[in-house]
């Protein structure tokens, strides 16, 4: 197992960060799929450019050394090549910008009316979740705190600094609105698999919409430095079927 880890071959049992992970976590939302695809598309051209630049560099070093060309050429500028090497990169940048902006704005957009609103409120150093769609008064009927499980209390198979006592339960394949805010200092609600990273700012409520495409457990961490225990306020999202979500809501406390 340790050998495998060193060979970057670990397969985590859940959607959490793996030891020595280099790539993305598996996408669970269309948003994350878009991010991953964009990254891969750009990386393809990035590698092409890298190879081209390295090839020119190495070639120049190889061919123009002091033994072969004892008297250096005294060219200080060439208009044509300067125009080309300015225009071409800017065209490439523009071509990268097109899908990039398309993705950015599609992530902001609220396409349909959400089915459920979940509020994630950051505290030093835990999170509170409020499901207020089922309230009949200003009394909160379904709200709970989510604390990290400390190292001493971990059970076999649980991830250190990632597991919490109360997970965010939400239905898969449903449009959800996350309202993210904070009660003290800025925090951030980030779940890599869902492609969401939303700052939790006191006095302001930020909205992000997610639609988890498959049932599973997704792990995330606070992504805005918020004090001593910044590392100890992870996020665990459990996406279940609509039926299970219904019974979870009905059986809450």
């Amino acid at each position, binding site marked *: 197992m340790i050998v495998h880890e060193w060979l970057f071959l670990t397969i985590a049992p859940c959607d959490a960060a793996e030891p020595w992970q280099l790539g993305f976590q598996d996408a669970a939302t269309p948003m994350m799929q878009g991010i991953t695809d964009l990254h891969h598309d750009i990386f393809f051209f990035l590698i092409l450019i890298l190879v081209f630049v390295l090839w020119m560099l190495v070639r120049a070093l190889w061919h123009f050394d002091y033994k072969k060309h004892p008297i250096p050429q005294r060219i200080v500028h060439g208009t044509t090549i300067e125009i080309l090497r300015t225009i071409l990169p800017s065209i490439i940048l523009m071509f990268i910008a097109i899908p990039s902006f398309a993705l950015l704005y599609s992530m902001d957009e609220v396409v349909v009316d959400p089915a459920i609103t979940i509020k994630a409120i950051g505290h030093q150093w835990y999170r509170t979740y409020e499901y207020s769609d089922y309230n009949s008064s*200003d009394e909160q009927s379904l709200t709970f705190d989510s604390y990290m499980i400390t190292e001493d209390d971990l059970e076999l198979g649980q991830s250190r600094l990632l597991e919490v006592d109360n997970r965010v339960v939400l239905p898969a394949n449903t449009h959800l609105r996350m*309202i993210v805010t904070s009660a003290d200092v800025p925090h951030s609600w980030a779940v890599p698999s869902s492609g969401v990273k939303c700052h939790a700012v006191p006095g302001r409520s930020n909205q992000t919409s997610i639609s988890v495409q498959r049932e599973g457990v997704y792990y995330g961490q606070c992504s805005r430095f918020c004090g001593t225990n910044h590392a100890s306020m992870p996020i665990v999202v459990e996406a279940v079927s609509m039926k299970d979500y219904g019974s979870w809501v009905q059986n809450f406390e």
Partner: protein
Amino acid sequence: MAAGGDQEEKTLTLAQQWALKEIEEQAAKTEPPVQATEDVKPANSDSVEVVAEKTEEISATEEAIPATEEAIPATEEATPATEEAPPTAEEATPATEEALPTAEETPPAIVDSNPVTEEATPATEDATPAVEEVSEDASEERSGEEVVSEESGIKIETAPADFRFPTTNQTRHCFTRYVEYHRCTAAKGEGASECDKFAKYYRALCPGEWVDRWNEQRENGTFPGPL
């Protein structure tokens, strides 16, 4: 990006996306199909359908783009003003027409157009009784029973997307819904059933702590909003 819903959305032009009247109208109008089908199909396929319908219908009513800026009390009285609606293609247009005479602002600047639509729709329904698709109010009441799907056993319903607040920052969305609720109860009396939806919306959108603080401020008479 990969979802069908996004693809459909892409086909809208910017002008269409900003055409608030239409979108709200369509949202209100297409709500019944969503809730009706929710019982049978997975939620995802619904949304695709809804967006598809939206796209069609928006292009149908495209010419009615200008919208209004109106204070809430004004709209509450303005409800029965739908008569002069010309008989156009869809039943969505009458309510939009009602908004047209006062049109001065560009769509993004809308402040309180949503109440206009919501208040106006029942009137539309009266005017055209033959319409099979019902207004938002009626659908909401109906959804009371229907949305309780066998699948989840609970009522799946929350504050709709509000095109007055299209950004990530929803602070004012929550605040506005809270104010709307209390202005509604001030106008229609405590516990009026028309106001229940606003209560539902602000409870969905506002963190409990904020609501508690505002309730306290209202009691002390220090609430900063226009009540």
